[in-house]
């Protein structure tokens, strides 16, 4: 049984932050959850999908975040509780609907969880999604612990119903992906029948009336937040330095203050409700300290909002010193950690702290540098994308017009690096590769003679590529789109999508055929096997050079990790040690130096390549690239 479904109120269990959020939603009695997967948010909806049947929920992987929010909002409009989850980039997609939804308000509790990725560990940006709360006049909660992740999520539904507004809960990687103790509560089984109240249409018009109403709701949220147990202060009555923090910053601050033994000098105001601010509470604490340090990720959101509040009240509060990201005291990019906070406190309070001796630290680094191999991000052994990029690389080289790949979001984004032979030269949002390529295609008329290849994964295609492809067809662009169909949303954890024939909860679904869709959207469609790199290279070249208009080449091969779960190896691979040329002229380690599948290893002593049996998936692709036919494949 899934741990989030454990019906043992009062028991403390170890949960991942995202599981704690899912549990909170279950304890709140949600009926609908809709999401588009994206790190670090994916496990929330993933784990709810696993208990959907048991709890009678509708849990879906929607095609994109905007649709997901609409699906969850419909549940709310009909009086049920709805959850929507996404990563920070997803909120950009959903924002168009969100910034109308704030005006129409909602009925049943509607909670939008956004998992941010400070440091962009698995994202194309590290945007701070909290700006949307301020932009949309929406209440914002930020859990700092695993227990809070659960409790806040649960409470967010009550708050949403109380205010008649969707509530944003913002988490970050270190809260979502770490594990901690969580106290379980009751699991309700709501049986409310959904009904849309037609006497209360959800329409943003008249805008000014609804905007006024929204402002009033937000003001009330601020009042509610004044007494929220998620906001609290720890420290001396009049601290020398006041840290105002939220989310992950709280743990870092606690650790820093404890390590430096500053409990008598530093106070920490921890806020769980960060928009609107609990103004009286914040002013009260501001009045007791002359120096304030803000610890938060990623942007100075809390910092600037508190400073705004201070500016309105500065006559009463007098002079203050503020330190944070906006003042350059803390780095304004990337993740924080306890060491950064410790070093900042050392500087501000002039205390000395050495966790380990400098000599020890140096030695430890030397040893770890020796022992830990450098591992650039790369495709898995047997990944069809490596073969695809090999074909792209060769096609563009042969074409000779300095062509490039307009990239998109997915595993294949690794085409920016050596694993994809650095072919990808643009990378932005979901669907942007095709949109850009369609735009480049219009520049041929002005003399642009570089061929452009858009790449998109299957899941990304349904998410945001379809409008870009439609646009290219309609506006008669010259476009080649390679649809890398690996039958999974691989990068975020193999969630099903409209092309896979399965729903989030494992039920059968109609397969929305990529070929048929692309044809319907006006493209000339061909289908190829990326493992046949020679044929793929030729097809790409022909489509680039000889075929005008909008072309889609679907390159279909299942993700190696998905394949590995269900199927045997295709081939047993072997490198003939007598034939292998190694570093000699005629090869110079093409397979291990350039192609670089992790299933191939370079035996430095023998001066020959070998197969790493433990890693090789037996796809057989490397046999095609070996110039001396030393890599042999034998059908299993």
């Amino acid at each position, binding site marked *: 049984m899934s741990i989030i479904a454990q019906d043992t109120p009062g028991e403390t269990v170890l949960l991942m932050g995202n599981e704690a959020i899912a549990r909170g939603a279950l304890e709140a009695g949600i009926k609908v959850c809709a999401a588009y997967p994206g790190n670090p948010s994916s496990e929330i909806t993933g784990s709810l999908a696993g208990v959907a049947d048991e709890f009678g929920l509708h849990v879906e992987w929607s095609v994109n975040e905007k649709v997901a929010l609409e699906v969850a909002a419909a549940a709310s409009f009909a009086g049920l509780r709805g959850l929507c989850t996404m990563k920070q980039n997803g909120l950009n997609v959903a924002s168009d609907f969100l910034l109308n939804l704030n005006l129409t308000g909602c009925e049943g509790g509607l909670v939008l969880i956004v998992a941010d990725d400070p440091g962009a560990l698995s994202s194309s940006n590290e945007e701070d999604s909290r700006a949307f709360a301020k932009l949309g006049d929406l209440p914002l909660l930020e859990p700092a612990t695993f227990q809070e992740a659960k409790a806040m999520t649960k409470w967010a539904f009550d708050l949403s119903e109380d205010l008649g507004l969707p509530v944003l809960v913002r988490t970050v990687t270190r809260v979502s992906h770490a594990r901690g103790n969580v106290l379980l509560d009751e699991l309700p089984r709501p049986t409310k029948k959904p009904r849309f109240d037609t006497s209360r249409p959800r329409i943003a018009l008249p805008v000014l009336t609804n905007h006024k109403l929204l402002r009033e709701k937000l003001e009330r949220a601020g009042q509610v937040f004044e007494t929220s147990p998620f906001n609290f202060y720890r420290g001396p009555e009049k601290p020398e330095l006041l840290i105002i923090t939220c989310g992950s910053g709280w743990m870092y601050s606690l650790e820093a203050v404890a390590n430096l033994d500053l409990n008598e000098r530093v106070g920490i105001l921890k806020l769980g409700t960060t928009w609107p601010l609990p103004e009286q509470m914040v002013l009260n604490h501001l009045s007791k300290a002359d120096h304030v340090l803000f610890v938060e990720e990623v942007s100075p959101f809390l910092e600037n909002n508190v400073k705004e509040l201070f500016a309105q009240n500065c006559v009463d509060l007098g002079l203050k010193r503020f330190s944070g990201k906006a003042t350059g005291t803390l780095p304004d990019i990337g993740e924080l950690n306890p060491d950064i906070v410790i070093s900042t406190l050392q500087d501000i309070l002039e205390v000395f702290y050495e966790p380990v001796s400098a000599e020890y630290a140096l030695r430890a680094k030397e040893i770890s540098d020796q022992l830990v191999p450098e591992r650039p991000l790369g495709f898995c052994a047997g990944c069809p994308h490596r073969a695809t990029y090999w074909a792209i*690389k*060769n096609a563009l080289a042969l074409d000779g017009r300095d062509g490039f790949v307009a990239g998109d979001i997915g595993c294949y984004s690794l085409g920016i690096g050596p694993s994809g032979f650095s072919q990808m030269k643009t990378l932005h949002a979901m669907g942007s590769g095709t949109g850009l390529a369609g735009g480049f295609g219009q520049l041929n008329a002005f003399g642009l003679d570089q061929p452009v290849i858009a790449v998109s994964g299957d899941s990304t295609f349904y998410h945001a590529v379809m409008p870009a492809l439609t646009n290219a067809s309609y506006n008669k662009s010259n476009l080649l789109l390679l649809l890398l169909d690996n039958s999974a949303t691989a990068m975020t954890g193999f969630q099903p999508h409209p092309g896979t024939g399965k729903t989030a909860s494992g039920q059968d679904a109609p397969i929305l055929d990529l070929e048929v869709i692309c044809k319907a959207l006006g493209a000339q469609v061909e289908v190829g096997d990326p493992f046949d790199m020679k044929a793929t290279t030729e097809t790409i070249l022909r489509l680039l050079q000889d075929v005008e208009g909008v072309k889609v080449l679907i390159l279909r091969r299942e993700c190696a990790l998905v394949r590995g779960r269900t199927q045997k190896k295709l081939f047993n691979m072997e490198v003939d040690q007598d034939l292998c040329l190694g*570093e000699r*002229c*005629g090869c110079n380690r093409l397979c291990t130096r350039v192609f670089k599948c992790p299933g191939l290893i370079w035996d430095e002593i023998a001066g020959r390549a070998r197969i790493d049996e433990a890693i090789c998936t037996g796809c057989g692709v490397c046999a095609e690239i070996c110039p001396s036919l030393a890599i042999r494949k034998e059908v299993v």
Partner: protein
Amino acid sequence: MNGGLRALEERVFDRDLCVSCGACVSLCPYLRSWQGRIVKLDECDLAEGRCFNYCPRGKVDLNELHQRLFGGPYKEIEMGMVRSVLMARACDSVWAGRVQNGGVVSALTDLAIKEGVIDAAVLTDREVNLLPRGHIVSGREDIMACTGSIYTSGPTLEALNRGPWTGDERIGIVGLPCMVLALAKMRTSSLEKRTPIDRVDLVIGLFCTWALDYKPFMGFLQKRFGDRTIGKVDITPPPERIMKITAGDELHDIPLDEIRSFIRPGCHVCPDMTSEFSDISVGTVEGEEGWNTVLVRTERGEELVKRAEAKGVIESQPLPGDKLSHLKEASLLKKRRAIDALKDRGELEDGYLTLSRELIQQIQSESKEAP
């Protein structure tokens, strides 16, 4: 002669000196010929590689090559080492109409295979889209498919590198001066890994003033003639110098000035008009249609030509003196122009070609501009 793919890229590709002879192709996975160009697919960081080692625009020391292949210093500055000069043509009417001029190249290749001098020959044929490519032949019909020229260069030597070969056949090759030079470099290379060069027993070199770059020239032809099939292409001898080209059913004249811009830059720095490192070199005879000029350079070249005459495969007569002196003038002029071109590029000192100061001076003083 050190250097690998990086040197090839820096010193040849980047300087636009590649003549697409194919000597570097099919030796490794890093280089491929595509639509008349040699394309680098990936980086190779070897300090020394066959690609640069064999390249006729890599490093060429004419004196050293001459020393090693002909056993003496390079001093025949007009046309290289020549044992005998004649004017010849093929006797068998089977070649008539198909061949450029006298058909001597085809007839000699045919004889060499028939007599077992060689088992197979690497010639140049054209794909449907007129793209030249190396073609391995072992009989008369295959030879017929390789007759004629369209004055574009192609990677003929790739076929030598690629095969397929069984491993014991003796091989003949017909090629342009750049290819013959590459073969000379292959033969004298000190690198451990070899091509089948050691089984190449016959090199017939063609006369060449320049070759056209396939892709731009094809673009030009397409603009001019659309989808009409391009047939025979000929260039009339000086002073007329007009490209006569059959497109569809019609014969068209194209003044050379219209196609000069498609000449490969690598041809402008070429000092060799007569394939000086061949066994036998063959070209036109000024003002004599249906005949070839034949320069015999080596003993085995001489043997084959004598056998061809004895068997009635070719007939010959001495090349008239005025024609010979014109040929020498033209050949020397090509050298002079190559030196001028290298000078203009600032590559006379550290360029691909190593020539002694004395030889340069000699070429400059003895060459005459064409009338």
